[in-house]
């Protein structure tokens, strides 16, 4: 029996199928995977960053020594500050890829419903609804945070290179430093709560049996990261760190 399932003249789906890299960037699924992977990289970084921050409760010597170690991290294999710069490059690439994908996907999502419903009702959890604006707030916060405590450009008082303990105390001695930081950390917690669970689904790791565990991990990550980060300004405000 002769069996022709596809007309000969037309290009087949296989011929029209783009390369892996292109199909990743062109597809909504591929862009979501980019967001999931970069998001997990950033969550991993946040965990390390938060743990490092808690060293501030053990005094200026230990905190400043930790700050110095970050610059010699990986030595003697890596040259001075190379470890730090590798981390910075990876993080910058993650933030950019995450943000660009989110922007492009959001544009697409808004275009996919040009006419809104007349009858609308509040839907979705708060964390889910605030992903987009929360992400923008976090992006702006990162810029301020780097200008404040890495370069010292917008730092209040005298920024001292190599004395992170004093710089942190200076920042959290101002009311706006505390407000910006705490608001951003609450936004971060909400973002991580929906983001971690979503990343697991996007990367195909979720299923019925694992769902409770994944949701529990997402909630635990959100709470531990938020509390851990906010403990530093609270420590300065209450005088535990001074």
């Amino acid at each position, binding site marked *: 029996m002769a069996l022709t399932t596809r007309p000969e003249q037309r290009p087949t789906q296989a011929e029209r199928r783009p390369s892996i890299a292109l199909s990743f960037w062109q597809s909504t699924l591929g862009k*979501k995977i980019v967001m999931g992977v970069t998001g997990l990289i950033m969550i991993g970084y946040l965990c390390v960053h938060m743990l490092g921050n808690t060293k501030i409760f053990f005094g200026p010597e230990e905190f400043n020594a930790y700050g110095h170690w970050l610059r010699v991290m990986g030595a003697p294999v890596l040259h001075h500050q190379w470890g730090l710069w590798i981390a910075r490059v990876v993080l910058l690439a993650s933030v950019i890829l995450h943000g660009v994908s989110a922007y492009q996907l959001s544009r697409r*999502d*808004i275009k*996919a419903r040009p006419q*809104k*419903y007349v*009858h609308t009702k509040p839907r979705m959890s708060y964390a889910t609804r605030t992903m987009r604006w929360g992400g923008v707030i976090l992006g702006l916060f990162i810029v301020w945070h780097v200008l404040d405590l890495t370069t010292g450009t917008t730092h209040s008082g005298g920024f001292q290179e190599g004395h992170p303990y004093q710089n942190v105390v200076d920042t959290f001695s101002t009311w706006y430093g505390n407000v910006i930081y705490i608001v951003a950390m609450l936004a971060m917690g909400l973002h991580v709560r929906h983001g971690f669970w979503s990343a697991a*689904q996007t990367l*195909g790791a979720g*299923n019925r049996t694992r769902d409770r565990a994944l949701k529990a991990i997402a909630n635990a990550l959100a709470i531990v990261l938020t509390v851990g980060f906010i403990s530093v300004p609270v420590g300065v405000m209450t005088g535990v760190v001074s």
Partner: protein
Amino acid sequence: MKLTLRVWRQQNADSPGAMATYQVDDVSQDMSFLEMLDVLNEELILKGEEPVAFDHDCREGICGACSLVINGDAHGPERTTTCQLHMRSFQDGDTIDIEPWRAAAFPVIKDLVVDRSAFDRVIQAGGYITAPTGSAPEAHATPVPKADADYAFEHAECIGCGACVAACPNGAAMLFTSAKVNHLNVLPQGSPERETRVLDMVSQMDAEGFGGCTLTGECATACPKGIPLFSITAMNKEWLRASRKVKR
């Protein structure tokens, strides 16, 4: 029951359209939602007005023709199709808002009727198995494990009504596409085209102008057939696997 209906009226795809208000006085609690609309239309015809256009076919909840976003919910407050929704779900004196599915990929044809042929094109991209058809094959020729058969059937329940797209805040068709992909990909009959199916259906889904998934879960809540949200997770997994394996 006496009801106030606010219905989306739109002459054709190019005209703007607006909500119109109607009173329906003679509604029984035992009527289905579509029978209630039939009553409205009979009154409109008697008055010499144009009846409200809406999609319907089997009225048994199995064909996927009926649609309607009722008070902001796709297929209304119960987890079923609009044809199987009964007026006992509403109170006497209620005001009910009735709108069409809203998505760029589902343009309004008239009133509450939308063009869902984007779904057909997603199916044409790979939602089938390529096999010689003829008389039914010997049932025992291809053994299917019970768990796989159950999984396939759970996803095969999708009737393609489009409630997932209507409910999704991004107008995404992920739940529909994933139901079709998972239904065929788990079965031995579907496995020869397992990789190309998911890649081609997803790229067609994107080409139709549906939005992307933000995992809000609105689709699975609205789905009258209970397709689970993890169907999307499973399709993501299939897509990742296919991206690595498919020959280009």
